């Protein structure tokens, strides 16, 4: 299946055009920084012990659309980059690990977003909230780490 994708005509055009490939890489970097940045900023605010004026729910609401718009762009551009060497990427462990980490990271972020208004009303930040925030940071930064390790380990990209 992935081999077919890799050899599709539009994918070949994409892989051969340095401008197109570069443009999609730019979109991928910009949107992934934006997506991960906004997620980590919210998680850091949840962990912020010294900040008495939390305004956590407001910050969460302000950041949420940005996070998912960034995620959407990162996913589409990431898929296009993947398509250029789909068969190879799908076969290597680091890439599979990266996808698994991202799925887990998305789940943790959704849990944080669903509960953040409740945590904001609590007199003390629940321990569960802090653990979830730490897990979210570790997973998202972990996804970037595995992402940068794919090239040196597998030679792809």
């Amino acid at each position, binding site marked *: 299946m992935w081999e077919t994708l890799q050899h599709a005509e539009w994918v070949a055009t994409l892989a051969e055009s*340095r401008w197109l*490939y*570069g443009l999609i*890489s*730019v979109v991928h*970097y*910009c949107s*992934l*920084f*934006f997506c*991960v*940045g*906004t997620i*980590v*900023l919210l998680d*850091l*605010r949840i962990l912020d012990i010294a900040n008495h004026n939390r*305004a956590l729910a*407001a*910050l969460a*609401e*302000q*950041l*949420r*659309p*940005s996070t998912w718009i960034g995620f959407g762009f990162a996913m589409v551009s990431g898929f296009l980059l993947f398509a250029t060497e789909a068969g190879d990427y799908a076969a290597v462990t680091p890439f599979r690990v990266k996808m698994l980490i991202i799925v887990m990271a998305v789940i943790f972020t959704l849990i944080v977003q669903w509960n953040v208004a409740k945590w904001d009303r609590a007199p003390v930040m629940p321990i569960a909230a802090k653990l979830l925030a730490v897990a979210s940071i570790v997973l998202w*930064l972990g996804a*970037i*780490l595995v992402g*940068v*390790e794919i*090239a*040196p380990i597998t030679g792809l990209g």
Partner: protein
Amino acid sequence: MHETLQAFVKWLENTPWGVAVRGSSWMYPIIEWVHFSGLSVGLGSSVVVDLRLMGEGRRRMSAAQLSDSLFAWNWIGFCVAFLGGFLLFSADATTYVSNTGFCVKLGVLTPLALIWHVVVQKKTPAWTHAEEKSAIGKWAGLVEFLLWISVISASVYFLLTNAVTHP
């Protein structure tokens, strides 16, 4: 000028940290990761303020409130990114400065984006108050947004032209 630069990048490559990063098989991607993590936090916190200044997205917080609440992490993020970037640069300084994309990035676009970012950060409270009357905040936010995209574009350019390849 050119000779001073060459002498500087040679020196940088031969610093203990330059030699260590270049000679190691695992350090380069790890430092790249540090650079990217710092960038995510630094750029994420800058761009959400730019978008808010532009009037895009939610209006749950004003641009001034948002900028104020993200201020500390904004600069921590940029410092981490700078530290990572400095180490990556040190490892292959002579190769980097021979690449046009890199020179444009570090010599022109990044300083410009950072100076602009500081101005926007200083002016955001005033622009927030004048939001209804003046469009200057919108334009300033858009310019910063575009400047950061240009920085990333120049970086992708030198990454894809294989300015530096690591085994």
